[in-house]
């Protein structure tokens, strides 16, 4: 693989530099190890509790019909929703990137925009429009509408990067358009599809609010139920253990499906521009598909919010409550984003400047921890603080640490991309000009990667803004974020009072979603 070839190259140059700056490497390595150990706490804790519970109790709690039921639900949800998302995303991405669809840029943006609407607001909108909606079908429908952009983004970026020379070569070898699509284009989308499908699958495992609205039970909803009735009893912990197993099964499945093929362009030279395929008479049906997707994924939530706001009139805008919620959300989002980004610096730096075995192990750990649902992290931190560090239970510090653990991968990915673009020569030049290693790092690489850090912070803040489960379980008493306020009102079926909060969350998410869209364009070199 190219990546590993590159990293051995970098490793070679890194090891030659090690003698020059052994101190810097060890400090940063140490920081990365500490962050990773912290990140491993929830996972380790659940495992430890399982062992402590004893095999017989654990088995009794795990092998029971209720767990089997949840497992079947989860399996059906994944098997139905993920392929549906993939098929929809590939079709939409091909049409926006490779065909002469009128208004393709606008449609592309509209395919990303549903991300600005938190999943539970999608669900809230559907339930108020179709009150009888519930069960597996409803869960799959709303999941697909809420999460397909996670697949659309990587697939469309991959489609833009494909080398058209390969398709020309296949056509010159006698393959018609459909054959070329299935034998040349689709295989090259494999990495994007696997990555996106994993992301959607993990979100489905972690999602809480969406499924509560449509009364569909998953492990996450069951754990929260259990937690609310019996606090942090072994039953909740055992369910969390099964949920973790599901996550790891997904990770393993993705690794298997991804394989170790190389999909990068072979050879040198710039790729030729893409020639859009002519849709001809299919243009109208395709436009209809986009109109339908936009209507269902954006029209329904916006219509519902507007309808409730209209019905609620002025009195739903309780400004004191809303401004308090805004304040709480801002503090948590900014604090969490800052903490996650700071914690991400050592890992991101290590993976670019000094890749090696340590870095691979640490990265693998962070990757696994990043896949854990918020409810697992929260449950572990609740148990830990209640048993051993009671003064820290339900404090700002604990909830911020939970956010950091949950959103660390987002921060690392953004930061890593921009550190990779800051040439190491600048760091060396700074040292050459008399700066100490850490000072040189700060004044060059960290400065230059500020845009990436900002983007990472924005993504973390977006995650915190729409976070429900961990906030519910860990935040200090009296905390009322936008999401919590929305949840409280909609739980009391006061949909009109919940609407202003939904509107604010969507409005705050839109710019961040735009950022995501622009980033994906940039990654494709446009």
């Amino acid at each position, binding site marked *: 693989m*190219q990546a590993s070839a590159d990293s051995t190259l970098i490793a070679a140059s890194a090891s030659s530099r090690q003698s020059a700056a052994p101190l810097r490497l060890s400090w940063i390595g140490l920081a990365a190890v500490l962050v990773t150990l912290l990140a491993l706490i929830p996972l380790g804790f659940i495992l430890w509790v399982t062992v402590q519970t004893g095999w017989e109790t654990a088995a009794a709690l795990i092998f029971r019909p209720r767990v089997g039921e949840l497992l079947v639900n989860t399996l059906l949800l994944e098997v139905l929703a993920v392929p549906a998302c993939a098929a929809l995303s590939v079709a939409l991405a091909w049409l926006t990137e490779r065909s002469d669809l009128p208004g393709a840029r606008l449609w592309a943006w509209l395919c990303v925009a549903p991300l600005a609407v938190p999943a539970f607001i999608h669900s809230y909108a559907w339930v108020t429009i179709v009150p009888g909606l519930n069960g597996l079908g409803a869960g799959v429908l709303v999941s697909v509408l809420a999460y397909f952009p996670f697949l659309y983004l990587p697939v469309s970026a991959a489609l833009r990067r494909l*080398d058209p*020379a*390969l398709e*020309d*070569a*296949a*056509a*010159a*070898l*006698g*393959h*018609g*358009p459909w*054959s*070329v699509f299935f*034998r*040349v284009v689709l*295989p*090259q989308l*494999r990495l994007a599809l696997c990555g996106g499908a994993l992301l959607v699958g993990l979100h489905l495992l972690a999602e809480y609010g969406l499924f509560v609205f449509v009364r569909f039970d998953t492990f996450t909803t069951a754990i929260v139920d259990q937690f609310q009735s019996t606090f942090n009893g072994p039953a909740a912990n055992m369910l969390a253990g099964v949920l973790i197993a599901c996550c790891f099964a997904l990770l393993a499945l993705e690794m298997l499906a991804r394989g170790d*093929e*190389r*999909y*990068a*362009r*072979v*050879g*040198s*030279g710039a790729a030729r521009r893409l*020639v859009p395929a002519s849709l001809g008479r299919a243009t109208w049906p395709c436009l209809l598909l986009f109109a339908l997707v936009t209507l269902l994924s954006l029209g329904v939530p916006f219509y519902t919010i507007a309808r409730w706001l209209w019905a609620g009139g002025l009195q739903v805008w309780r400004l004191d409550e809303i401004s308090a919620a805004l304040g709480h959300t801002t503090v948590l989002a900014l604090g969490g984003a800052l903490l996650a980004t700071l914690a991400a610096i050592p890992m991101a730096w290590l993976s670019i400047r000094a890749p090696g075995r340590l870095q691979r192990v640490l990265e693998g750990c962070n990757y696994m921890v990043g896949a854990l649902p918020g409810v697992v992290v929260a449950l572990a931190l609740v148990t830990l603080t209640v048993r051993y560090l009671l003064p820290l239970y339900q404090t700002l510090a604990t909830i911020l640490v939970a956010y950091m653990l949950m959103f660390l991968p987002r921060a690392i990915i953004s930061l890593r991309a921009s550190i990779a673009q800051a040439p190491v020569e600048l760091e060396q030049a700074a040292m050459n000009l008399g700066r100490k290693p850490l000072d040189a790092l700060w004044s060059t690489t960290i400065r230059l990667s500020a845009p990436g850090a900002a983007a990472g912070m924005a993504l973390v803040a977006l995650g915190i803004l729409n976070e429900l489960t961990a906030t519910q379980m860990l935040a200090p008493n009296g905390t009322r974020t936008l999401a919590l306020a929305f949840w409280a009102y909609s739980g009391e079926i006061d949909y009109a009072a919940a609407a202003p909060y939904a509107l604010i969350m969507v409005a705050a998410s839109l710019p961040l979603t735009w950022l995501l869209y622009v980033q994906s364009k940039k990654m494709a070199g446009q």
Partner: protein
Amino acid sequence: MSFLELSGLRKSYGPVGARVAAVDGVDLAVASGGRTAIVGPSGCGKTTLLRLIAGFERPDAGSIELDGTRLAGPDAFVPAYRRPIGLVAQDGALFPHLSIAANIGFGIARDAPDRQARIAELVRLVGLDEAFLQRRPHQLSGGQQQRVALARALARKPRLMLLDEPFSALDTGLRASMRKAVAGVLEAAGVTTILVTHDQAEALSFADQVAVMRAGSLIQAGTPRDLYLRPRNRMVAEFLGEAIILPARIEDGRAHCLLGVVPVDSTVRHEAAEILLRPEQIGLEAGAAAPAGGVDVVVTDSEFSGPTCTLSVRVANGAGEAGALVLRRAAAGAPEVGTSARLTVSGSAHLLD
């Protein structure tokens, strides 16, 4: 009767009002079994012309006929995958997700009984070992990738092979040997070939017909020798090699120019014409060995660059005209700066349009 015939081919890009003609009225005939090179500076439209022939683009006007079958025209368009035309792209365009065997077999029906045998035969044909078949494209060097691309394109037994700068990504040393190997393979297979390149030396050595393209039009087509020695105009002359172009007066089949009186390949009387001499036609002898005839020159500058050196000389001829010339000579035995020498012209000059 030519095998491939392009007539009045046109293709423009860009929005209405700002359309740029990439191919602007191209006529070209290619003989069966022949090798034609289309050569021109980058951006001249040669790749678009190739894509039109391959069927990736639909011409705005004009027609393409292959062996009597109309491939493109006002009332017909055969898409690329139905044309019996092979293509080797600039960097091979091998499918990165398939093995070498699967790449070569891509154009062979999956249930063809002799599929494996044909793949093995093709890989041997392009001079690779069968052990390569299990490898992946990225495990091969650039030259090997090009060989596989050629084998893959030959698998369908195309009637016409298009080569889109297939050697330009290779090292200089490898380029010449690959060119020879590819020419040999295609000759043995009896496939008519069109090569697109910006490298004039490559075009002259590869093809039996060279067409020079510029700004979407073919300026001149002919045999390599013809084009080199008798280019139509200054652009073609300078593009195909070093050229010494001098103003001259033509009279009775002779050109009167700075270098004296030189025979010319035209008998038309012309007061102000331009003639072309190739550097290898010019001799420069210093000192006692200087032969009779020719003109006297003084070397004013000399720039050494290994096997050759570039001399600047000041010429003063018998007719009282004076001027400067730049000549590249073998470095060994080249006259020193400040010495005088005698400059002679062999063969005849060519009259440019």
